[in-house]
């Protein structure tokens, strides 16, 4: 569920058996390979127009694997590679999966997610190197020869079978593919051809894949009455909050509602589960209307995109102001799920409107508190940002301080205890100047010793203070001796555990002497 900001994928081509041909109505014989190429071409065309920013790579494999096209956004290159696809000798899925793993990690690391599309005719190879063989032997192997699944990165595997389910069920092919899917992490699907094998049915199968995995995510971004149609790319994936308590995945609403704005310094590099581009889109109908009106007066008919570029869009306004002001917009994605919109600049002075999703929940960032408790500043008695923006109501402070912020006492290492005792002695030698610090440190030690049941220490420190008292130089202030013996006596009393003197909340107060006033 974690890093689904990057969708990238591979195609795997097993060997296409020359003998298995398909008859079409026209008696023209089509290889299954041609059908698959047809389906893939359709997918590439869809992506070129709706999923342009996706990086895609194409791989063919047999006993060895070959990267035909490395990761690219150039869909023409992918289609060209498809058209010149050669036939290979043998099907060996395992080595191909190793190839996928290596190529992907080298290019993208392991925090990116990848969609792997395996296109097959359903024959899984024969003998050693076949999927059947791989699955049977995978448990008897050492660390160095591990089966490549699951991949070290998040994976969704789609297995496209250019064969019908009935065909596959005649052998154990479907069982083996299901096992493969399960090993990949289970987050994927097997697609088979419905009805007779032909252009149309393969077309339909790839259509189902597009609907399932490559449909663009369209939403409307609202800021009060201002709004814009947008495509969110890559599309946000459903998130499971807690597999046990809330097993239903949460999905992002198609209405994204801005709730208000926060300074970048206040939101403070928050952790996000994914990042997405928010691209304003022109809803076709509107463009047509504008286009129709404009053609009356002008000779050159502007293209739809030119018209869209010229009509004001809320995303562009929002982006510009977020950038100039150094702010982010807090956006609600669904019930108890929030994100932020901000301007993201890449190195080449280009910039874009981006949306990051927070972990679902009512309080994704502790320093903002509960998101539902964030209200407009106009309600506050005085502007929490100050009249000159010199203040900020953030971060929200937690009720209890963490250990490193509250001077806790830990004596696990001898040095911790020694340091605390030495601190008391150092201050003892500077009495009465350091009376306050002396008692503060003394009381800190006393509290910890009482809590740990370490009464022996209280006696020991009392002895030390008495010794200090005897070692006071003649020049010492008379108050020093009084304070030292008073403190020593109080510690001794506490070490008896007598509830009158050993109360945790009690503090040893400086002795009131004629000198101290």
């Amino acid at each position: 569920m974690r890093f689904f900001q990057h969708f990238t994928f591979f195609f795997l081509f097993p060997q296409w058996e020359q003998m298995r041909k398909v008859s079409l109505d026209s008696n023209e014989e089509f290889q299954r390979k041609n059908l698959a190429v047809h389906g893939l071409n359709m997918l590439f065309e869809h992506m070129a127009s709706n999923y342009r920013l996706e990086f895609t790579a194409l791989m063919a494999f047999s006993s060895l694997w070959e990267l035909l096209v490395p990761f690219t956004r150039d869909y023409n290159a992918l289609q060209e590679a498809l058209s010149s696809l050669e036939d290979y000798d043998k099907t060996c899925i395992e080595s191909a999966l190793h190839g996928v793993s290596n190529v992907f990690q080298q290019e993208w690391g392991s925090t990116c997610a990848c969609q792997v599309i395996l296109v097959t005719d359903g024959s899984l190879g024969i003998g050693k190197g076949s999927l059947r063989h791989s699955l049977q032997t995978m448990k008897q192997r050492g660390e160095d020869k591990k089966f490549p699944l699951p991949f070290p990165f998040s994976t969704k595997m789609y297995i496209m079978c250019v064969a019908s389910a009935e065909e596959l069920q005649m052998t154990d092919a479907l069982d083996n593919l299901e096992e493969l899917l399960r090993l990949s992490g289970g987050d994927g699907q097997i697609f088979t051809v419905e009805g007779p094998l032909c252009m149309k049915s393969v077309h339909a199968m790839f259509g189902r894949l597009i609907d399932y995995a490559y449909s663009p995510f369209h939403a409307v971004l609202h800021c009060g009455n201002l709004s814009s149609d947008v495509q969110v790319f890559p599309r946000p994936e459903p998130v499971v909050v807690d597999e046990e308590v809330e097993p239903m995945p949460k999905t992002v609403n198609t209405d994204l509602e801005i709730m208000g704005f926060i300074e970048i310094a206040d939101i403070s590099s928050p952790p996000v589960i994914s990042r997405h581009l928010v691209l304003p889109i022109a809803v076709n109908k509107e463009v047509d209307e504008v286009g129709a009106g404009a053609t009356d007066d002008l000779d050159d008919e502007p293209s739809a995109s030119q018209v869209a570029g010229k009509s004001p869009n809320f995303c562009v306004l929002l982006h510009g102001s977020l950038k100039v002001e150094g702010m982010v917009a807090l956006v609600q994605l669904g019930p108890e799920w929030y994100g932020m919109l901000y301007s993201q600049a890449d190195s080449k002075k280009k910039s874009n409107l981006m949306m990051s999703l927070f972990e679902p929940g009512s309080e994704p960032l502790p320093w903002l508190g509960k998101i539902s408790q964030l209200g407009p500043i106009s309600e506050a008695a005085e502007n929490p940002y100050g009249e000159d923006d010199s203040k900020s109501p953030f971060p929200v402070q937690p009720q209890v301080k963490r250990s490193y912020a509250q001077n806790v006492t830990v004596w696990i290492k001898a040095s911790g205890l020694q340091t605390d005792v030495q601190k008391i002695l150092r201050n003892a030698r500077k009495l009465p100047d350091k009376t306050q610090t002396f008692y503060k440190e003394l009381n800190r030690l006393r509290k910890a010793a009482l809590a740990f049941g370490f009464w022996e220490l209280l006696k020991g420190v009392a002895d030390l203070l008495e010794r200090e008292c005897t070692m006071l130089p003649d020049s010492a202030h008379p108050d020093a001796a009084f304070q030292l013996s008073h403190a020593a006596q109080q510690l001794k009393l506490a070490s008896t555990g007598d509830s009158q003197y050993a109360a945790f909340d009690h503090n040893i107060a400086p002795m009131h002497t004629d000198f101290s006033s």
Partner: protein
Amino acid sequence: MSFGKMKMFSVSHKTVFVVDHCPYMAESSRQQVECDVLTKSRAQGVIPLAPVSKSLWTCAVECSMEYCRILYDVYPKDKLINYIVSDSEFHILNSWRQEDQSIQELMAALAAVGPPNPREDPECCSILHGLVSAVEALCKITELQHEKRTALMDTAERVANRGRIICLTNAKSDTHVRMLEDCIQETILEQNKLAAGSDRLMAIQQCELVLVHIYPQGEDTLVSDRPKKEISPLLTSEVHSVRAGRHLATKLNILVQQHFDLASTTITNIPMKEEQHANTSANYDVELLHHRDAHLEFFKSGDLHMAGTSTRENGLKETVTLKWCTPRTNVIELHYCTGAYRISPTDVNSRPSSCLTNFLLNGRSVLLELPKKSGSKVISHMLSSHGGEIFLHVLNSNRSTLEDPPSISEGCGGRVTDYRITDFGEFMRENRLTPVSENSHNPSGKLPFERAKSQLERYTRYWPMIISQTTIFNMQAVVPLANLIVKETLTEEDVLTCQKTVYNLVDMERKNDPLPISTVGSRGKGPKRDEQYRIMWNELETLVKTHAAATDRHQRVLDCIIACRSKPPEEEERKKRGRKREEREDRTEKNGNKEAEDKSWQESERLKSLLDKEDQESEVIKDSPDSPEPLNKKPRLMAEETQPQERAKGPVSLLTMWTNRITTANSRKHQEFAGRQSSVNNKFELYQHLKEENGMDVHENGKATR
């Protein structure tokens, strides 16, 4: 806010500490601590104090407190501890409630218990009292369990009840340990029966017993270590046999890491001033604990060993070493961060630790570098504090599919150049958010964030996105009204201010002041002056109409506008016809008509003369990040508009009398020169009208760039 995959109600939701308080725990651990460290200068003739030694009880308590400290630092919520002490009876020191979950609470309760009484009858004392009570405690419902069960209603059974018992004791033998396990197993079965008939109790589905046998240094253990084994489907048990002191501390540190999925990072190369020699600095290391997902990337890529991992002396604990990068200036930047995890220093009181934590608590952030063999520098993490809590942020260092995206200027609306960027920036500042106390009640019954959304709705009822679409928002004179009318409720004073704004506009119209009407699309001459005012009034009416239904006072502002703008129907009609004719004229002008240019020359001459008296042109808000600092849009005093003697023609109306009074009052204050008033960095461009002669319109430098 960890992204860990730990279930909400895993065994780690509830931990019961059962600590033995029987007489034998008063025995010395026989690990001695020298607390009288004498400095050389004072050493002569002083007999150092005999070293002190901690009892088994003290060792158990301080190590369990350290376990809690780390836990509370990393999980301040929803990972709960119930602390029980056992002697001749059980003593429950706190509850599952969130407010009881703190070191201070526990320390105070422990102080009240005190060390074990060595003279107590050992026959009466047993750890069993505590263990039975621990099982009962595990059946008690926590606030989070209650909240989730209530929220889930029909599917309340999804809320599981699991827990862990950590028992710190001195057991007699392996047989004794088995007896304790059997007893816990029986108690679970009994308590589960009881729980079935109660709302406030839940049956235990899984219990993990971690028994730590503590024995003094120099003795042989009577109890053997045993890895986790299943006693029953409900109960697992493991036994750790540990010497008191340092070993026990290490054991509990390892346990807290295992139990809560923690991992260790060592920050290396931290420059620190030497205590003795303030002008030299040495490099220190500080070890931090945090959720192990902060290392997820290393685990996944199998880079853990490359990332400077080292195995410690005990062979059980590993740490990832990251290098401190001295922060440059405090640049405010939005890092792409894939996780943020609370930290706890392993050695919280050491000088290097407190130096690092104080540095961070003071608001500085530190980037951390992953030392790589290849020599390339990769910033993988960042330490930063938020509200007194320190987080280890995981920064993304991978490539992304979002690289090299098309610029927003290439998409829809990308070629529009006069967005009201500065105005929308102002709008965003007004719609910033602030935390509202949960105790404060709002009459509307809406949650604060819903009220924030309502405010956005009100503020955007009429909000033109580009400069050329609006007149009123380009006029300084309208600002007071525009700011007020969007409010949910208006005061009498607000209404008065709005009315003044309207009167002021009426006055401007009477004087025939020019308006910043957009000339985009009609180069040279814009619409006629009376037409300009008609457009302005219409727009103002549109704005106010969207709010008129809110309250009577809003309605009164609308009434005021309708009353003040004169528009007899026939005149309206005539104007409309006139406008159509003008439009036709405009179209001919577009074709570079010489006559039109002459006209616009005349127009600009007239403007020039106006400019001498007034600075109306400066009211056009140059709205672009490229343009100089925007003028401060605080409502200005109205005095700048007019000179009283000019208006004293004809019969004096009530409005004029009132305006005169205000103006006289204001004229006592210093009035700035028109040029200086609209200057930018103390520079004011003279002869601005010449630009217009050259056919440039006012908005040309108001281009919005992205």
